[in-house]
Structures are given as structure tokens and as C-alpha cells.
């Protein structure tokens, strides 16, 4: 059972019609994880006993027609809190932490009787682009086990690409859903800021963080995004806008005729790998052949995006991570003399190097004498980045380009140079800065590795993005390719 030849709708129908039971499906899922995950290392915690118990209950209750994910095992990134299931954010400081409540997104899935297959690896506190910053393990790319899966939702993307689960939840602060989706040849959507409640997401950059899905198909992704969206009183930045049934518009009539697609010249410029460029240009030509209108545009402040993003996200992180102090939960350093020792030693022993770098950068950017030159200046550039997009969206429906400047790189090749690592985010961070929705879909291969096409939409216009993504998917076969892992195919 590797989920390659099915989708959510088919699985749901089979469950409703009792062609398969949730218990059978759940057992098959764990057999497949057992076969692959020693190589891929996507999961940090398996919820096997809990999942089988849940599955038995679902089988006994029967599956209602309006519960799309009932009885279906899904994966959850380990920075999303899950009641009674260990949640570590891939950090030593939370290695013993078992939440006593569920994140809103988990509550919504539980109301549908989903099965939580387990918790997926990430860069510690979602800070990184490769999962190499996980305190526990590095996830391997199923397409080439010597390469990174991208990050920070690398465990989620790799688990879906390897067919271990049919979909997994991720989070995206500066590209953490889209980059791994691109590197693993899967569909990843970061919805508009405010579309999905952040309550119960371990906070990193609160003005940038958003939850979303990694899936194999566009339609699955659209269905799942509708399920978790909507206003939540516990996150007052979550929007009161109505949540569309995104998937209802994906059918044989969906097309891109007359769709105005803007391609920023900065997204196909210096620093973007030539082979990646070729794949993206072919994808754009394909859209043109389907009736879309392609225009070159400029987003002139793109080149300042990485610097401004790392100032803002690190500043927010340094504030958010003050709560990890060894007092109320998490790991407390041993043999401490006084309270100051508890704070300093617990944090210094509990956080990994990348998290410490971000805390340092943020504390520095917010400190007296530097606040105006760094934090305020970066926030002004944020305004300019948003205005760049607003101008383009005056006469275009979507923006497109690569999700990342390269395909997945070799494990270990970038980890000693944090600045080089940060530059990989150049095409994804502007979307979070502006609060826009962004997705990555499989668009082809370079050096035998998947390449993702990034689609950026207007605020709360995920529908146009899904329509364009679906049209592309239905007229190409990149999404049907699967990694050769374990000789399954």
C-alpha cells in the first residue's frame, strides 16, 4: 500500500463502501512505513497503537459520506501540537514534551475522524531548509537518498513522496512547504496568511507562519485546505472570510484560457540553476499553449527579500522562543545552582546551533541602537515587497516562477554556510512577507530530480491557483512519476 495509485476521494469511497476497512488501511500504512522509513527517516514519532485504536473505533462507527478523511491515516509535522502525542519541534528542549491540547487544525481533522499516523521530522523549530537542523535525524529525499528533502517540512514532503501517507500537514514561514514540495515532486500549498488558524502551531515568526498541506494531487490538496481553513477565536489573525469548497471547481471544464500569468524576471535571473530555468520555461510555454497569457514583469525588491525576511523572522523568533526557559515544560538543565543558571544552561544545552543563530540575530536586530536600522528598516522593505506584488496583480491573475533556485542538494553540502542556506529562500520568502498564498506543483525534472513550479496568488484567491495547478496537472504526467524507493514500482 503506497498510495501511489489512489487519491482521497477513491480511498474515502472504498471506506464508505466497505471495500477496505480503516484498520486494514492503517495496518498497510505502517507496513509500508516499516519498509521505507529506515531509509527515508521522515517520521520522528509513530502513533501506531493510537492509530489502530482509532481505526477500530472508526470501523465500528461506520464512515459518514461527508467525512472525507475519516479512517484515513495522515501525517503531521512535529511543530503542530497533538494531545497525548509527543510534540518536539525536532528540538532537544522539547524532547520530553507531550501536549495536553490539540492545535485547531488537529481538532478540525479529529472532528472528521482522521487517523493520526504520526509526527514528521523538520528543521528544529522549523528553522532551516533541509531537515539537517533537526536535533534527532536528517530526512533523506526518496528520489535520491543522498540528497536533502528540503525544509523545514522535509519529513512531511518525503513521507508523501515515498507513499508512506497520502497527505501530510506542514507549516511555511519562508518557504517551508513549497521548497520541500519542489524537491520531492509533490503538491504543497501555503494558504494566505490568516486563512488557517495558527493556534497550536509552535510559533516561529508569528506574522509569517501559516499551516498547509503536502499531497500528491492538486484536488486532494484543495479538499484538505478547505477542511482546515476558517476563523478561530483563539487566533485573532485568522480571517472571517468565507472558506470556498476549492475542489468543487476542479473538473473537466477547468481551464486557463485568458488567464494572465506574470513571470518576474528576478525569478529567472542570476542564481537560478539553468536546468531549473529550462523546466520552468517549458511549463510556462505549456500554459501558453493552453490559452494563458504570459507576461514578463519585475518585482524589483525581490533582491532585498532574504535580508529583510531574516531580520523580521529572527526578531519574531527571538521573542517567541523566550518561553523555552526550563521552568514550566521541556528539558531543564541538570546540576543548576540558581534560577539564572536554569534559563541560560537549559537554553544553551537545549537549542541547536541554527536556532541559537536566529535568536542571536533577532535579539541583535531588536536591541537598543540597532532597532531602527534593522527591524524597522526591514519592515519598511516588507511594505515595498507587498506593493511590488500589488502592482503586478493590478493586471495579472497569478505570478509564476521556480519555487527554489536549484533542485535538492546533497546532504551536508550547505550546512556549514548558513548564509548560502538562507539564499535558497530567495524565491519563497517574498510571499510570506506579503502574506500571499503560494504553492509548488511538480513541473518536471532536472538532473533526475523533481522541479517545482511556484504559483503565487492574490490574497484569499487560492481558487485561481488551484484551477491553474489542476489544469497543468491534468495535461501533464510529472505528478505520476514516483521515486524508485524499495523497488515498489
Amino acid at each position, binding site marked *: 500500500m503506497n498510495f501511489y495509485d489512489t487519491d482521497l476521494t477513491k480511498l474515502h469511497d472504498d471506506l464508505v463502501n466497505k471495500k477496505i476497512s480503516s484498520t486494514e488501511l492503517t495496518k498497510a500504512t505502517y507496513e509500508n512505513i516499516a519498509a521505507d522509513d529506515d531509509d527515508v527517516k521522515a517520521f520522528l514519532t509513530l502513533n501506531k497503537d493510537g492509530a489502530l485504536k482509532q481505526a477500530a473505533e472508526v470501523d465500528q462507527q461506520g464512515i459518514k459520506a461527508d467525512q472525507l478523511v475519516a479512517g484515513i491515516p495522515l501525517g503531521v509535522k512535529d511543530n503542530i501540537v497533538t494531545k497525548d502525542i509527543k510534540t518536539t519541534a525536532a528540538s532537544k528542549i522539547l524532547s520530553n514534551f507531550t501536549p*495536553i491540547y490539540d492545535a485547531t487544525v488537529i481538532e478540525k481533522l479529529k472532528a472528521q475522524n482522521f487517523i493520526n499516523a504520526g509526527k514528521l521530522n523538520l528543521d528544529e523549530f522549523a528553522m532551516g531548509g533541509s531537515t539537517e537542523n533537526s536535533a534527532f535525524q536528517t530526512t533523506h529525499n526518496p528520489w535520491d537518498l543522498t540528497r536533502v528533502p528540503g525544509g523545514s517540512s522535509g519529513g512531511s514532503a518525503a513521507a508523501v513522496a515515498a507513499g508512506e501517507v497520502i497527505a501530510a500537514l506542514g507549516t511555511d514561514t519562508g518557504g517551508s512547504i513549497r521548497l520541500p514540495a519542489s524537491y520531492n515532486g509533490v503538491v504543497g500549498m501555503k494558504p494566505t496568511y490568516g486563512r488557517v488558524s495558527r493556534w497550536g502551531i509552535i510559533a516561529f515568526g508569528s506574522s509569517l507562519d501559516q499551516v498547509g498541506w503536502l499531497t500528491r494531487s492538486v484536488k486532494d490538496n484543495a479538499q484538505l485546505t478547505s477542511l482546515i481553513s476558517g476563523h478561530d477565536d483563539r487566533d485573532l489573525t485568522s480571517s472571517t472570510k468565507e472558506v470556498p469548497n476549492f475542489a468543487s471547481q476542479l473538473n473537466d471544464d477547468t481551464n486557463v484560457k485568458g488567464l494572465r500569468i506574470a513571470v518576474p524576471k528576478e525569478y529567472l535571473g542570476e542564481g537560478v540553476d539553468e536546468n531549473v530555468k529550462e523546466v520552468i520555461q517549458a511549463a510556462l510555454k505549456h500554459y501558453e499553449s493552453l490559452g494563458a497569457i504570459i507576461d514578463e514583469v519585475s518585482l524589483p525588491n525581490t533582491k*532585498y527579500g532574504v535580508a529583510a525576511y531574516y531580520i523580521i523572522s529572527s526578531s519574531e523568533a527571538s521573542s517567541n522562543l523566550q518561553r523555552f526557559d526550563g521552568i514550566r515544560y521541556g528539558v531543564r538543565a541538570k546540576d543548576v545552582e*540558581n534560577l539564572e543558571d536554569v534559563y*541560560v544552561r537549559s537554553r544553551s544545552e537545549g537549542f541547536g546551533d541554527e536556532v541559537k543563530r536566529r535568536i542571536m540575530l533577532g535579539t541583535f536586530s531588536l536591541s537598543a541602537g540597532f532597532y531602527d536600522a534593522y527591524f524597522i*528598516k526591514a519592515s519598511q522593505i516588507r511594505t515595498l515587497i507587498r506593493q511590488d506584488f500589488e502592482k503586478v496583480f493590478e493586471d495579472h491573475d497569478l505570478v509564476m516562477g521556480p519555487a527554489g533556485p536549484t533542485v535538492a542538494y546533497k546532504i551536508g553540502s550547505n550546512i556549514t554556510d548558513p548564509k548560502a542556506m538562507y539564499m535558497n529562500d530567495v524565491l519563497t520568502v517574498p510571499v510570506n512577507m506579503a502574506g500571499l498564498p503560494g504553492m509548488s506543483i511538480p513541473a518536471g525534472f532536472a538532473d533526475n530530480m523533481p522541479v517545482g513550479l511556484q504559483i503565487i496568488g492574490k490574497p484569499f484567491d487560492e481558487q485561481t491557483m488551484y484551477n491553474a495547478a489542476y489544469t497543468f496537472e491534468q495535461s501533464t504526467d510529472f505528478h505520476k512519476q514516483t521515486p524508485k524507493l524499495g523497488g515498489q514500482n
Partner: protein
Amino acid sequence: MASKIDEQQVKHVASLAKLQFDDDQLGKFTTQLESIIDLFETIDKVDTTDVKPMTSATDQVNAMREDIAVNSNQREALLNNAPDTEEGYIKVPAIIDESGDGE
């Protein structure tokens, strides 16, 4: 713009952030932070005269909820996650340094 960060400043920022580095780490972190702050300084040349800073991407405005007390009764569950407890309280080491060195 400010001069680049040195080891003295890294130590100061670390103390603000309740972190500490040994000598080896201090050198490594200073070099890395210096290189990233170089990158940060590239934004200095952007003209931002009269540009308002953007600190939030939400279109929501502040909303009030009704002020109703709820008793979630989770004390025990919460305390289960605390590293050290006693009689329903979280226990921490002495706040006052008792080492007797006159500090």
C-alpha cells in the same frame, strides 16, 4: 549604519538572550553572525523615506470576546510537563545566590 559585530557584542547579545557560548563557539558564531549581518546591511541602500513599516499581514482588526471565566481544570495535566513540582507548584532552584561569595 553600525559597525560589524565583534566578540564582545556577541557576548552582550547572548546575555540578553539568556544563551552562553564557550570560547570555541564564540569565535564560530561571531564569524557566522558577522557574515549574515553583512547581508542584512544590503537593505541600507534602499530608499524608504515615508514608507510605513509593515508588521502584520492580517486584514483582521482587534476583536473582543465576552469576558466569561472558564475553568479548564488542567492543573494536574499542566504540571505533568513541568521538570520539577511540589504540592501543586512548579519548583525552581534558589532565586538568590546562596553560594556566600558576597554577591
